[in-house]
């Protein structure tokens, strides 16, 4: 392909056709400020901050949506350009509450940062402000239209990456607001609570529902025995809240930090991830042997569950009946653990630290009370935990590593990899292979199901039976697989994770989360797996003991009561 020659700020630049002026400038080391732009996701030119002068053009051009052309002459740093950028930013700020000091995104706000970068030192424009009130109706997310700058990143993510379209611009002109159709509250919309919107929001216009208060209260309550579980993906991202590189494995420090916060027991969701493999693997083998509904589709991801409930209710029989590891943990904490520790389950308060906003919704689902109590009392996001640690003055990075409590803190590498796309599939294959063939896996890493490609497929030979498996992450990819299933393509087992990259890219993870950060967190997950002495779920001694002492066998009566669930067909509108 022949390259396109252009001049940016007097520098000769070559770029491949289709490159935007913004990218071409970036390649030449010239930084153009942006606000609404989100590479490959939101390229709509709405904020008019990345303006540049293009010789021959009638007006300034938004560099994010202007493709390079042969002989183009671009200037990114003229007085006119700087003035226009500043004016547009001042206008955006004139419709933004000046509440930085009390804002959940303070110091991590792109608008705040841009105002500093462009040297805005005065609020010259004042006037009417957005007339919409915050929306607290969703159990997972808070919409605050007052802080919305209408960059529409959330809309693009919801519509294109997730293909859920729960939110879109409503009304017009100054009254434009990003909201569910007909300005319905988010809690009534076909929103799957994935929180990808919150992850890309440059301000605090959409953020997780803050439940740290409930956890502080439980920790302070002498009657309560407060236990905490940590999702696999949190250990490779929590460090980012304290300036660490994405993907650094901080499991031991995470445990130490949680103890310092005052939790009575620090357990690991990886334990119930291993347990999930036992239950779900058995379910797969049973369906294969007894002619049950195939393909079997995983059920760990609550955003994905709500998605299929809203948009593909006909396919619900394909879902595994297994609860997610979070919910299995809650059910066991208030039964098995309560018995073992001799604590009245009504005094046990289960907190989970999740990379996820949909887990808040999941914890509140009516049917999640197999123990006779609400399985999980509060699900916090990685970001909320980071805030609590900061508030408590815990210097995360300097903590000495500590170990999880037993027995619900004992896990294998198979449990850890649940945190990345393909992980559940790989963990299941590790166990299924050995259980079905009775042989030891020669190589327990299934690289075909790893990585950030949207849809991954492979086949595995189990004693002469070929198992066709597929993995999808991000709901647009999930849709694609479901269409293939509806179209008759033969699969036996499918892993679907709601968020791009799986849980490491979850809506509750530190901001920013982008493609590169996801890749680094995934690498951290596989590092953690390799560092584990045991890497197959069925080898987890605590899981083995659980079956022996309490559950009996996979898919047994107790499992059915505590670890399995049912689903609900929901409306699209």
């Amino acid at each position, binding site marked *: 392909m022949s390259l396109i020659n252009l001049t940016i700020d007097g520098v000769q630049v070559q770029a491949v056709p289709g490159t935007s002026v913004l990218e071409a400038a970036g390649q030449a080391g010239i930084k153009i400020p942006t606000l609404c732009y989100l590479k490959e996701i939101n390229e709509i*030119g*709405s904020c008019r901050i990345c303006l540049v002068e293009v010789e021959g053009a009638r*007006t300034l051009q938004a560099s994010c949506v202007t493709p390079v052309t042969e002989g183009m002459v671009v200037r990114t740093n003229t007085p006119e350009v700087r*003035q226009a950028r500043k004016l547009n930013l001042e206008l955006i700020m004139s419709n933004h509450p000046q509440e930085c000091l009390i804002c959940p995104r303070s110091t991590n706000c792109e608008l705040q940062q841009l105002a500093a970068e462009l040297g805005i030192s005065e609020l010259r424009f004042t006037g009417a402000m957005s007339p919409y009130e915050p929306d607290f109706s969703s159990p997972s997310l808070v919409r605050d239209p007052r802080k919305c700058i209408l960059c529409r990143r959330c809309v693009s993510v919801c519509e294109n990456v997730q293909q859920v379209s729960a939110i879109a611009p409503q009304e*017009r002109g100054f009254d434009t607001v990003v909201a569910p159709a007909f300005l319905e509250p988010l809690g009534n919309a076909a929103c799957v609570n994935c929180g990808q919107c919150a992850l890309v929001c440059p301000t605090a216009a959409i953020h997780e529902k803050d439940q740290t208060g409930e956890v502080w209260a439980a920790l302070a309550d002498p009657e309560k025995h407060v236990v905490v579980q940590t999702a696999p993906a949190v250990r490779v991202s929590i460090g980012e809240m304290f300036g660490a590189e994405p993907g650094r494995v901080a499991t031991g420090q995470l445990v130490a930090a949680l103890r310092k916060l005052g939790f009575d027991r620090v357990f690991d969701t990886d334990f119930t991830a291993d347990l999930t493999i036992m239950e779900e693997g058995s379910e797969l083998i049973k369906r294969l042997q007894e002619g049950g509904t195939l393909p079997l589709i995983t059920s760990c991801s609550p955003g994905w569950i709500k998605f299929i409930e809203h948009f593909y209710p006909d396919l619900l029989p394909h879902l595994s009946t297994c609860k997610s590891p979070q919910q299995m943990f809650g059910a066991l904490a208030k039964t098995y653990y309560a018995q073992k520790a001799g604590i009245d389950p009504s005094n046990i308060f289960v907190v989970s630290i999740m990379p996820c906003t949909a887990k808040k919704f999941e914890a509140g689902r009516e049917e999640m009370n197999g123990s006779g109590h609400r399985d999980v009392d509060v699900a916090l996001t990685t970001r909320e935990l980071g805030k609590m640690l900061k508030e408590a003055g815990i210097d995360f990075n300097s903590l000495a590593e500590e170990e999880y409590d037993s027995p619900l803190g004992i896990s294998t590498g198979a449990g850890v990899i649940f945190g990345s796309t393909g992980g559940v599939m790989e963990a299941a294959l590790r166990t299924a292979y050995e259980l079905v063939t009775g042989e030891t896996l020669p190589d327990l890493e299934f690289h075909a199901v790893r990585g950030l490609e949207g849809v991954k497929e492979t086949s595995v030979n189990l004693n002469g039976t070929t198992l066709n498996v597929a993995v999808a992450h991000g709901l647009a990819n999930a849709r694609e697989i479901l269409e293939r299933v509806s179209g008759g393509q033969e699969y036996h087992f499918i892993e679907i994770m709601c968020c791009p990259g799986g849980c490491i890219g979850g809506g509750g993870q530190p901001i920013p989360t982008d493609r590169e950060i996801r890749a680094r967190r995934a690498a951290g997950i596989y590092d953690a797996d390799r560092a584990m002495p045991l890497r197959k779920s069925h080898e987890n001694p605590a899981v083995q003991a659980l079956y022996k002492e309490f559950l009996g066998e996979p898919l047994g009566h107790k499992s059915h009561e505590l670890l399995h669930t049912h689903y609900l067909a929901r409306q699209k509108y």
Partner: protein
Amino acid sequence: MEMYRSHVLVCAGAGCISSACKSVQSALLEHIEENGLTGEVKVVETGCMGPCDLGPVVMVFPDGVFYRRLKPEDAAEIVSEHLLKGKVVTRLLHRPAGNDKQVAGFDQLDFFKKQTRIALRNTGVINPESVEEYIARDGYRALGKALSQMTPAEVVEAIKESGLRGRGGAGFPTGLKWEFTARAPGHPKYVVCNADEGDPGAFMDRSILEGDPHSVLEAMAICGYAIGANRGYIYVRAEYPLAVDRLEIAIGKAREYGLLGDNIFGTDFGFDIEIRVGAGAFVCGEETALLASIEGKRGEPRPKPPFPAQAGLWGKPTVINNVETLANIPPVILNGPRWFAGIGTEKSKGTKVFALAGKVNNTGLVEVPMGTTLREIIFDIGGGIPAGKKFKAVQTGGPSGGCIPEDYLDTPVDYESLTKLGTIMGSGGMIIVDEETCMVDLAKFFLEFVQEESCGKCAPCRIGTKRMLEILERITAGNGRNGDIELLEELSAGIKNSALCGLGQTAPNPVLSTLRYFRDEYEAHIRDKKCPAGACQALLTYYINAKSCQGCGLCSKVCPAEAIIGEKKKPHVIDTDKCIKCGTCKQKCKFDAIITV
């Protein structure tokens, strides 16, 4: 074929319909029947004839007598006197401003005499619901000629050579647009008619759609042939129900006659048209927003490039032409590009339809050759300013345009001259204002409009126009601050330079042009807290002229603020501290004793 000795053309444009032309028409029909003339006189319901202010209007042919402001009770006399006895009913004739006599023949009236009707050639002449009448006036001959005697490239060439430019606002050469689309890779291609006319006071396109819908259908088919498209869409606003009805009838008839559909005129070429009704957003007149709306998405502009010629409807090459542009196509093909290029000025060929509105005697629709001066349009055709008031300015181009003051009335109207004056041709709205109009208030009106109609996508338009409007609101309320003019100028320049689409980029124009020609009015509002035109209520002070006041007490009775006191039969006074400037006293005073300063 039935022959009639007389045709009575009843204007059924939306203006005349709202002044009850339908009951005039029924009354005429009734009396024609009563007098046994049914077989001799044919009543034809036409589209808009133009002089809307005079409606309901009727023309009687073959004599060409023009009757105006008719009431149903006038029908009897027209039938018994004119149609039966051949006597013109003088009292129902029009007397143009400044004339001492009534004028009978429509062709004697300046309003019609000074016009050249190409786009409006059939509007007000034929029954828009009759394809036969369109065909009788050479309708579909241009399509026949294109299909049978010209190659698609020759059609494109003819349009290029004619010099026809887009009548929707920007004036882009139509032939070039067709050529780009014809050459663009991709299939299928589409022809879209932009009938989302939305400028305040503009109704050129509506009148064509209502009065001559087939001209648009024929032109779209010609365009389809030229660019290689087999499908067209007409995007028409829902506020034009009559236009939608007449288009639907026309499309049905054209299909029935084989003028739309497969194998038109026995050739391999097929073309069909669908109507898409807009939902009331002004921004959908912007072509990329219009396309999004047809596709079922929120009507919002997207950045260009790619232009619709490369990636338009559903990402396919698309020609988007405005109604009036299309209405010019059949005559260009039929009479040849040179004929068309012979009309108008060097760079602006042909004619332009204008909708005259505001403070002008003959409000209505006119079509004049490009290059006609504003003075001719406003004073000769438009009949000048009513009630002896003084002309102040004319606003062209709607909310994207600007105003032109008296000094430039002799400017020939074409794309370039108007741009030079700081306004645009736009789609053809002309709003005339007189000395009693405040120019700051006028700018505020247009800004209110664009603010309301901004799609909300880009920050400068969404927020910038709001802040400009807020500044104008405080200026007209007497709260203007030093520096407000400079702030308006800064915002205008910024929004023009950085908004995403044409709507935003032109939104500051009304402010900029009023600042250019009437800056002193802004200054008077801000510095002296006075509105020189006496239009901004908040800046007026009400007084009672003691010499005229009869002491009737009516003003004091109606004053809601109890600000007027006085003894019976003695001059009253207004307590200016209490006065809320509502103007009720001035309206009610029978002696014109209440004055404002």
